[in-house]
């Protein structure tokens, strides 16, 4: 009887334990070797770009949270800075530092998730648990400032929602020390681990040339030895005042990507520490001018028309909403009244504030940038996260385009996989750090 050799088609996903995110890979296998891969995306498409065209500029922030949901703060910053570029706004120093601190915390959480998940898929369950524990420390910091862990909507056009809480610096330094401990621990468990090392080394190689021609950025590009980082190439916010390095690899394999991410986390922690040394002081708690009244009471008094002297008082709001009080608004928001909502004391206390408020929140009014188009890139955790906004002079963006960093990486994934073993899919896919929310938008 004649024997016949045929290749086998194997479908992985869209919902598969080794796929953190919904994506479908159709592989053509020759024995255990991958001969061909077809990547199918779009399972998490939620029409981000279309929905942004139907709402006002400020209302896009909740949508941006859901792009890269592991580091939502960076998306917020990216979108806000694009609109600010369109409006030519400069924000106060303190807000810049706060944005950098929050972005870098997010970057660390993103890298922790990526490495932890990759390690778990290769059998190192304890590293995953340690790293998620460390991520939890950082989420606690994020939660304290923004009031949420994931869908934070923290950044505003022209500033941020809330100032840092008193005692945040010490708490942050404590958490950084804890995270460092976890990083050392995980490094000991992974870097000299035979199993992890053998499965990562020389797997999923991509050359610098190929990575560039695919438009890949971020840790994936840096692992091939190209030191492109938006924070260095086009410094935004206050990155030019900070001392940090851009770690690069040499070979562009999975192990290099692991090393680059580990080194980047350390650099991000360094950036946070430097920010706390340089950040200008905010208003001091307890420095009061009028009497402090609860928010509900202020609303009630305003509704009954008892607005006399209301503007002298101070509203007592939750720390995560501080930005809209008279005391904090100035130091973390720009003074452009056509962009930033007035402090709540003014909204309820006098007619100018109330009109200002409604001019910004009513449909057909709102923030109205001039006609034009801008592109602004920030360094996301996976690479260059760029927003391209076209404005037609109305309160809703005409077109919002997000350049998702893992989109080109997924397009290049077949190149990394073809020729390697079926089992190598897992570490290679893990090192891509695909975030379906950002990929499919």
């Amino acid at each position, binding site marked *: 009887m004649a024997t016949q050799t045929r290749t086998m088609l194997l479908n992985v996903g869209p919902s598969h334990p080794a796929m953190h995110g919904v994506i479908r890979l159709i592989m053509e296998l020759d024995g255990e070797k991958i001969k061909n891969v077809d990547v199918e995306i779009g399972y998490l498409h939620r029409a981000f770009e279309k929905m942004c065209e139907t709402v006002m500029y400020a209302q896009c922030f909740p949508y941006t949270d859901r792009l890269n949901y592991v580091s939502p703060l960076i998306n917020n910053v990216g979108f806000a800075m694009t609109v600010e570029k369109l409006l030519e706004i400069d924000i106060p120093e303190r807000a810049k530092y706060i944005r950098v601190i929050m972005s870098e915390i997010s970057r660390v959480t993103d890298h922790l998730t990526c490495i932890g998940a990759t390690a778990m898929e290769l059998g190192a369950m304890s590293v995953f648990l340690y790293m998620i524990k460390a991520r939890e420390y950082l989420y606690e910091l994020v939660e304290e400032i923004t009031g949420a862990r994931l869908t934070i909507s923290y950044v505003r056009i022209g500033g941020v929602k809330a100032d840092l809480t008193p005692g945040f610096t010490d708490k942050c330094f404590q958490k950084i020390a804890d995270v460092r401990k976890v990083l050392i621990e995980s490094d000991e468990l992974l870097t000299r681990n035979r199993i992890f090392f053998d499965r990562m080394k020389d797997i999923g190689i991509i050359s610098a040339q190929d990575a560039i021609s695919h438009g890949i950025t971020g840790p994936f590009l840096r692992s091939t030895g190209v030191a492109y980082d938006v924070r260095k190439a086009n410094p935004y916010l206050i990155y030019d005042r900070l001392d940090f390095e851009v770690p690069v690899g040499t070979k562009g394999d999975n192990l290099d990507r692991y090393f680059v991410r580990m080194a980047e986390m350390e650099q991000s922690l360094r950036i946070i520490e430097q920010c706390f040394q340089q950040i200008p002081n905010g208003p001091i708690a307890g420095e009061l001018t009028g009497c402090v009244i609860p928010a509900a009471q202020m609303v009630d008094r305003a509704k009954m028309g008892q607005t006399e002297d209301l503007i002298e008082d101070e509203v007592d709001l939750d720390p995560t909403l501080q930005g809209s009080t008279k005391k904090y608004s100035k130091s973390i928001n720009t003074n452009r009244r056509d962009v930033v909502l007035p402090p709540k004391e003014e909204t309820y206390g006098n007619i100018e504030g109330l009109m200002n408020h409604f001019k910004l929140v009513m449909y057909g009014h709102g923030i109205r940038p001039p006609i034009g188009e801008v592109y602004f890139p920030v360094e996301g955790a996976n690479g260059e996260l760029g927003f391209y906004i076209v404005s037609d002079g109305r309160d809703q963006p005409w077109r919002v385009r997000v*350049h998702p960093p893992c989109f080109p990486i997924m397009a290049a994934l077949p190149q990394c996989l073809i020729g390697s073993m079926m089992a190598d899919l897992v570490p290679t896919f893990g090192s891509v750090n695909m975030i379906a929310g950002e990929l499919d938008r």
Partner: protein
Amino acid sequence: MTPLQRVQEQFAKDLIETHTFRGDETLIIRPQALKAVAKFLKETAELDFNFLMDLTAVDYLFFAGGRIQKEFRFEVVYHFYSLKTNHRLRIKVPLAEDHPEVDTLTDLWPGANWYEREVWDMFGIRFKGHPNLKRILMYEQFQGHPLRKDYPFNRRQPLIGPPN
């Protein structure tokens, strides 16, 4: 000489307009010249635009509530970046509504493949010479192109599973 001026000089007759807004340099060129301009940007040693950072499109139907009438309905927008000179350049190609088609850049940048599929999927703009121009985010049976301005954002379509 800036990259913008270099292209201006080289392709004077294919140029429709140039502008710089908020520091973003933009060239608007005729669709026939796209490939030549892209090749020039990539292969001229002192320009060296090795990254095709982003590729997208914009639909200008009823722009600014119909107050501004654009000659062409679509614009395909390319963002180039040069690692060597740290320069960014935006190139826009206007396309008419009745025949939206432009040359593909997949042979110059393989990364253009998926971006062009996405533009086809979302706007219905064809890319001449593309090796695999099919939908990427939406499913094959989807009717219409959702990011076109005449596609209502709340239109529902039946979800069709893959053939079993």
